[in-house]
């Protein structure tokens, strides 16, 4: 039964990320975390593909590929 939920791919462009925390804080399911000064994915399985992180990032640094 692999009608399993398909996980998105989250791309973080590290040279653009300024570590502002906005994506981490406003992710409804706490998928993201800070690793030093840049963001990283903590638990991809929790991602509900809401795109809030990508939408709010002021720096074009996080992209969610949901299909």
């Amino acid at each position, binding site marked *: 039964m692999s009608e399993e939920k398909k996980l998105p791919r989250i791309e973080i462009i590290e040279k653009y990320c300024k570590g*502002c925390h906005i994506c981490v804080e406003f992710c409804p399911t706490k998928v993201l975390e800070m690793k030093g000064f840049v963001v990283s994915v903590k638990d991809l399985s929790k991602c509900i593909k809401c795109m809030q992180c990508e939408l*709010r990032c*002021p720096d074009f640094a996080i992209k969610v*590929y949901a*299909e």
Partner: protein
Amino acid sequence: MAYDYDKYIRPGKLPHIWCPGCGHGIVLKGLIRAMDSLNLKKEETAIVSGIGCASRLPGYMDCCTLHTAHGRAAAFATGVKLARPEMNVILVGGDGDGTAIGGNHFIHACRRNIDMTYVIMNNYIYGMTGGQFSPTTPHLMKASTTPYGNPDPSFDIAKLAIGAGATFVARGTAFHANQIDKLIAEGIQHKGMSVIEILDDCPTTYGRRNKYKSVIEMMNRLKEVAVPVKAAEKMTAEQLQGKILTGVLYKADLPEYCAEYQKVIERSQGGAK
């Protein structure tokens, strides 16, 4: 699917210069989505600014761009629009640029109801020059030039625009990112002067001085203070205390300046009255 912003970004310009958590980047992305949703052509779109952090925005846009003198975006943009009325003319800038040194140009562009769209990023401060107070710095808040609290009352940019004659006036916030593109797109489509105020944050020169511990606190404030106009209709004056209305605040259908000016040309040549 991840959004393709590269379509309108000038190649090689990212990362941008704005500080971590500065909302200007969120507004830049909203503007791109608005332009994309209307399929605006780069060569038919002029993006015009004055000076300030917010006014750096056109540098990132792969369009026809003008980065002019402090406060003078509206004057240059008016020239562009009158010379090339078929172009989409979009002004961008900050509260200082638009309502202090450029306040005069701002109100008269509104009064003329010229078909332009002005996106004004209101972070309540002169960010670029280190945090001097601006005409929108709230009463009692701190700036480098008001260390004991701002004695002035502040401008409400949207009300100022309506009073001066703009025919489309809207307000959004950097927190409500998915609304920014919709407000700007509606402003672009409106025939006449459109003013879209985006309440913004400057963590570096305003947040720090006013004891917002982080960018997140500034974003949470925007989240809490904003009330959509529709929701406000059902709220009491007491519930609306300290809130700021967002959405389309005013819309009117009145004669547009380029069309009126065309009539001047025709009258001078003995044509239409």
